[in-house]
């Protein structure tokens, strides 16, 4: 019998480590790069994970959610703190890594030790009793009194409300985030769901503001060639695409794109264009992003960048720059303003950036270089998401390419040459 158990645990040790990432400040790219490592699988639900990776600096508001996520993990479980110091008090048995270390071998080692029994499963960090007792009386815990009405004792309860089409449907208010795998790190929503349609959204304030002073300065060079800028832009869009493909259910294709994004040699522009055309063929069928999540006019302007360009607004800082005009730069503009349009704009920009990088590799832009981040506009986001079905809402949020960390970061000095 123990021979069989050893065989099973030996096999389990050879399976990839399932990692649930808690992504703090400064860790987003490093955690995304882990997806390419063999032997590691990043999972969306803590119930599926055996290793909790706490990466980067966490805002203080996240300590309790992290503890809750840890306790949701079934055993055997372990915690790795990657560059996160304060959290080690929360998880005394955690392994600590500094930000420069390579986390992948440590994760694999911890996973193997857990499976073979060489490492004890981490004990729960929160007390295991509900904050308020359940008052049901029936055999399945139903019935009883004193448990209905809004949000009793921390358990969300669906209440009858006027919903879509004039039907009185149950609406339930649930929190989503801050570690929801499809959202950018930091995004946390309270969603009023009627079925799977979002009736109302309350967006929590950006948690990274609380640790803004300790965030490192952005990596922007004050002087960079067009080649460097455009290659960085293309890599950024490809990283976004890798994540977007994963959310759309295409994990293997997302890995392929991520590999393109991190490769030493940037990909050939024609390859990116071909890829974009192939993806767009799906969208054109009308089954995927076409017509979903329309963001037009003033709302598109608030978000700016590719979102605005997908709504037909010709806004691009590069249009004002003589060096770019000399290279015949033309922004990618679409007018549909839906998820499909935002995908097309980003892919065309990535391909165009790679071409610009080739042609103008050594020139420098003549105007100031300012980092662009899509505006963090919680009210606009609430307006955009209200009324969307859940799948459309997630694909809309993904298509916005939000970066809450960049929004909280201190602004670089103005007037750089």
């Amino acid at each position, binding site marked *: 019998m123990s021979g069989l158990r050893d065989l*099973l*645990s*030996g*096999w*389990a040790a*050879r*399976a990839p480590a*399932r990692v649930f990432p808690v992504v703090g400040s400064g860790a987003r790219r490093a955690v995304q790069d882990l997806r390419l490592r*063999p032997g590691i699988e990043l*999972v*969306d*639900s803590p*119930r*599926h994970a*055996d290793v909790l990776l706490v990466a980067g600096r966490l805002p203080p508001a996240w300590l309790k959610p992290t503890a809750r996520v840890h306790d*949701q993990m*079934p*055993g*055997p479980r372990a915690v790795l703190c990657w560059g996160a110091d304060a959290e080690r008090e929360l998880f005394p048995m955690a392994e600590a890594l500094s930000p420069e270390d390579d986390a992948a071998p440590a994760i694999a080692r911890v996973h193997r030790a857990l*499976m073979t029994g060489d490492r004890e499963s981490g004990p729960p960090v929160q007390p295991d009793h*509900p904050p308020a007792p*359940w008052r*049901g009386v029936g055999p*399945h*815990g139903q019935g009883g009194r004193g448990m209905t009405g809004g949000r009793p004792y921390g*358990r969300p309860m669906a209440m009858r409300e006027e919903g879509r089409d004039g039907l009185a449907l149950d609406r*339930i208010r*649930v929190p989503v985030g801050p570690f*929801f*795998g*499809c959202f950018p790190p930091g995004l946390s929503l309270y969603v009023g*769901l009627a*079925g*799977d349609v979002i009736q109302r959204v309350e967006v929590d304030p950006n948690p990274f503001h609380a640790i803004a002073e300790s965030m490192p300065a952005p990596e922007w060079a004050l002087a960079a060639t067009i080649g460097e800028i455009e290659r960085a832009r293309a890599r950024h869009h490809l990283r976004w695409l890798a994540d977007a*493909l*994963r*959310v*759309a*259910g*295409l*994990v*293997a*294709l997302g*890995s*392929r794109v991520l*590999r393109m994004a991190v490769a030493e040699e940037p990909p050939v522009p024609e390859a990116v264009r071909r890829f974009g055309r192939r993806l767009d063929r*799906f969208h054109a069928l*009308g*089954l*995927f*992003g*076409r*017509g*979903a999540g329309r963001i037009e006019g003033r709302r598109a302007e608030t978000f700016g960048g590719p979102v605005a360009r997908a709504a037909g607004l010709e806004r691009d800082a590069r249009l004002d720059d003589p060096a770019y005009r000399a290279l015949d730069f033309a922004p990618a503009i679409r007018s549909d303003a839906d998820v499909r349009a935002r995908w097309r704009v980003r892919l065309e920009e990535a391909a165009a950036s790679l071409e610009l990088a080739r042609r103008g590799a050594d020139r420098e832009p003549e105007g100031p270089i300012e980092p662009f981040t899509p505006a963090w506009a919680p009210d606009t986001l609430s307006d955009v998401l209200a009324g969307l*079905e*859940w*799948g*459309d809402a*997630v*694909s809309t949020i993904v298509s916005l390419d939000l970066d809450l960390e960049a929004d909280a970061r201190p602004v670089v000095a103005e007037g750089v040459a």
Partner: protein
Amino acid sequence: MTGWTQAAAAVGTIGAALGIGIWATAALEEALGGIVSGAGPRPGRAVAAPLHRAAFLWCQRRSRTERPDAELWASAPALLGGLAAVALAAVPLAPTVDVADVPDGIVLFGAAMALVMVAVFLHGWSANSTFPLVGGYRFIAVALSYEMPLALVLIAAALPAESLSVGEIVTSQSSLWNVLRQPLGLPLFLVAGLGLAFWGPLALPDAADLAGGTASEVSGPQRLAWGLARRAVLVAVAAMAAAAFLGGWLGPDLPGPDWVGGLVWMPLKTLAVLVVLVGLGHLVPRVRIESFVVVAWAVLIPLALVDVFVSGAIALMAK
């Protein structure tokens, strides 16, 4: 054979067929995923990886939520697996080797597949959690949209055979396979099959945008059981596609008794269909529910009806 030996042989056959089929599906997932992601097929790894993953899930502990419906939650994977086994039982392996080649095998298959809705919804509802519940409801919202084309194309396949028995449908293809004389049949059946196994583009109840959907609160041996049951449904769908559209056990003559043909051609054809289904899962993104329902009712069901009418007309003219 006495009744009990027959029953034991039947269970053994279905179990072995499902076991091999599930392993093949999981190995194909790894291999095709490797090809699509650019890491290469790595066949050795692809064959061993399902065992490692299953062992990991076996060693993990079961999750507990607050006040789940424990009996239904535990029985949902068993129900799904049982339905897949019933559906596979309707598909004969060879002219003399079948488990339940009943005179109305198509109806048995369709009935088993229709009840998949119940299993998936129970799996989502029992956990007493938001994302699984939304996943369960999503499946109910779309299930009818692909069960209708499924039933219609199977009826169309039954028309030339003038019988609802799957064995008769296979023998009716001895002149020409149904994939050639009813070109709409196989694509529509594959779409319905993807939906019933909630795979790839139609992986709505267990979607990534619901953090795993009905499976998001499940871990350990229960998650292993759910994964096995899902792949079992895919294998049953592939086997029926091979029998009803690709000629089943028919193929170039092989030496030996006639069941040798069944043991060689049926698995090969089922494997080919599995390659297509798993490949679609890696290449086609997940659909939007609203758009898919519109397309299903406005395009797929009319095409399935056209398929039925045309095959009926051809069958009448051939008489």
